[in-house]
């Protein structure tokens, strides 16, 4: 159960955070990380000096433009899947059956190396039930993944 909580935190949807509705209006499917100022000079500057705007983050906070993840984060790879665009990468990996985003998800859930290929195939088969709509939230996705795993003999032990 602890692992699932961790994974839920990874998805930006810990149990406590669900009360405040994870995500936000700009969060979720189809969203992307690039927000803020645009324009040639600012882009050039950013590329030249490899700049970061505002305070440099130090693993304490993370850029989750559009996604409100307050209350859900701890220090670690926490915000990974709640970050814009990542939910989508997970969806893409599930649709095709493999990929780095899916691997990161299985590692964070605690799926052992031997079971990862199997985990991938189960996720692939259940894509339609895990992602039922285009506006599904990260929290919902995590709940559905948990449900799928609970119903699977081999994967139930991880939840």
């Amino acid at each position, binding site marked *: 159960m602890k692992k699932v909580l961790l994974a839920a935190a990874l998805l930006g949807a810990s149990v406590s955070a669900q009360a405040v509705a994870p995500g936000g209006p*700009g969060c*979720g499917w*189809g*969203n*992307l*990380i*690039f*927000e*803020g*100022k645009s*324009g040639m*000079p*600012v*882009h*050039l*500057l*950013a590329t*030249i*000096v*490899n*700049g*970061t*705007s*505002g*305070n*440099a*983050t*130090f*693993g*304490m906070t*993370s*850029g989750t433009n*559009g996604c409100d993840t307050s209350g859900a984060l*701890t*220090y*670690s*790879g926490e*915000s*990974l899947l709640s*970050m814009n*665009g*990542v939910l*989508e990468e997970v969806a*893409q990996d599930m*649709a*095709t059956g493999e990929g*780095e*985003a899916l*691997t*990161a998800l299985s*590692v*964070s859930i605690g799926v052992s190396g031997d079971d*990862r290929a199997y985990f991938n195939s189960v996720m*692939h088969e259940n*894509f*339609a039930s895990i*992602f039922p*709509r*285009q*506006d599904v939230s990260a929290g919902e996705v995590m709940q559905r993944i948990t449900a799928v795993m609970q119903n699977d003999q081999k994967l139930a032990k991880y939840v």
Partner: protein
Amino acid sequence: MRAALLCVLVLFCSTVAQARDLEQLAQQPRWQALLHINPGATLRDRQRSYVDDADFFLAADGAANPVSELAATVEALEPEASPARCRFPARYRFVAEALGWRDTEPFAHCAEYLEWRGAVHAKRAVLVFPASYLNSPSSMFGHTLLRLDQGDDGAVWLSWAINFGAVTTEQDNSLFYIYRGLAGGYPGRFNLVPYVQKIQQYSNMESRDIWEYTLKLDQSQIDWMIDHLWELRDINFDYYFFDENCSFRLLELIQVARPHGGLLDELRFAELPVNTVRALEQRGLVTERHYRPSKEVELAALSDRLDDQEQRLARRLAADPAVAESDAFQSRPPRRQAMMARTAYSYVRFVNRKAARTEDIAGRSFALLTLVNRLPSVEDPELPDKAPPESGHGSQMLAASGGQRGSDDFGEVSYRLTYHDLLDNRRGFLDGAQIQGLGITLRSTESGAARLEELDLVSIRSLSPRGRFSKPLSWYVEGGLERAWAGRRRLTRYVQGGAGGSWRSGPWQPYLLASVRAENNSDFGPLITPGGGAEAGMLYHAGRWQWQLSSAGHYFSNDVYRHRSTLAVQYALAREHGLRASLEREGWRGDGETEFKVQWRWYFD
């Protein structure tokens, strides 16, 4: 009395001995690395710390005096539960090891540090090099960062990225700030972000390939680096684009891990990220290399395995997923359908990579993924075999040439500070990309002494091919001094630039650009004479060969017309040597001159 004297002597001697010990200890490479003392690697701040932040030092003269900083550090770290321990865990480790302190839990009172350290740990360190991309000259030198892997090979999405960059503010949206960025006007800081953000930024948003180099660092060395990283939290360095940049600072971090590695022994005027990779490789610090293609490269690989009709279908499918129900689509075998669906999805994501979320984009993405999921799984397409950037030619160049112009023989020497033109040896570079800075050519002829033929301040070209799935703009901008016809051959000062399109079919890359030019020379009446024109050309890239046929013409506001046609070829003799031949015809109203030239080009760092 005698006893008292002896006692004083012993005390005095032990103090002197202690001071001498400290002096020796402060000379140790690791202490110097922990303080970021410049060992002579760059011109500014030699034998001083690079850190420009009083918060980093415990002694008043700490930035310039490693001994007094060490003394102040020992004093501050010694008491149990000292707050300084929580700020300087790597310094503590250094001092404790050197002086034999045996505190089993020296950081027990440092909750924040312990929590951070619990989250930030690594079994492997990887140097990450997002290579340059067409259409953004500022990226052409590349960038480097460090990645910390928690151990699992496939789970790099859970890794941390250590990044050194300038801290700019939201208002900094003008060209002045670019100058500031180059000249050290911004503070630079280390930051630590999830690596996945960097993948998103470079591979998705900016279409840059990423090269990843696993470093030969053991657990203890990696721990030194992470502990020290904590000491650099919110600490300012001045950021200089050319030498004290992202790559240089990373070398300093690695220096903390391996203080005897000799990474900073040589003086450098500019630190190119690609040279950082080379420096690490030459010292045997790189054990493995991994290529992470950009989303654009992936899309190209996906679409390349479709035939022409399938590509059209994929485009239509991307615009309207209902095309999947059409006879044209359904009549294809399921595996081909799957390939088209993958391509269409990838295309929608690519085209909208910088767009805000809309119901339309989200809906199409979702429908296409559902389609992909429903169709049989197909293997990923094979990616083009790309030469890594560090296998490319050196960044500086010297050239010697001989030729004939009209009936006059000439000899030339050229030097270029940086970096690559369209015909230079192509291994490790992008076809169609050019970035040159500070090139100078001196020519001596039979009839006259050596004189300046050309001074290239900057010359950037980005000819990126347009295809069915990607429609980038091609453009160029350049400026400097060159000899051109104005009554006679004169030195002219000019800036010119243009934009247009480029296409690619196999080794052939045609391009067409409209251009404008502003020129100043001693013959033209107005101080600055503007002109407009066009350029058309064809590049041929294959193996060691690069060809270019081009023709450009400009018509000026004072009714002067001038054009120049060139056929040039370069053969890569070796990585650092190239042989180039060119035939050029420069024409103006009623007359013209022809020049033939053979050139040997030697690249070096």
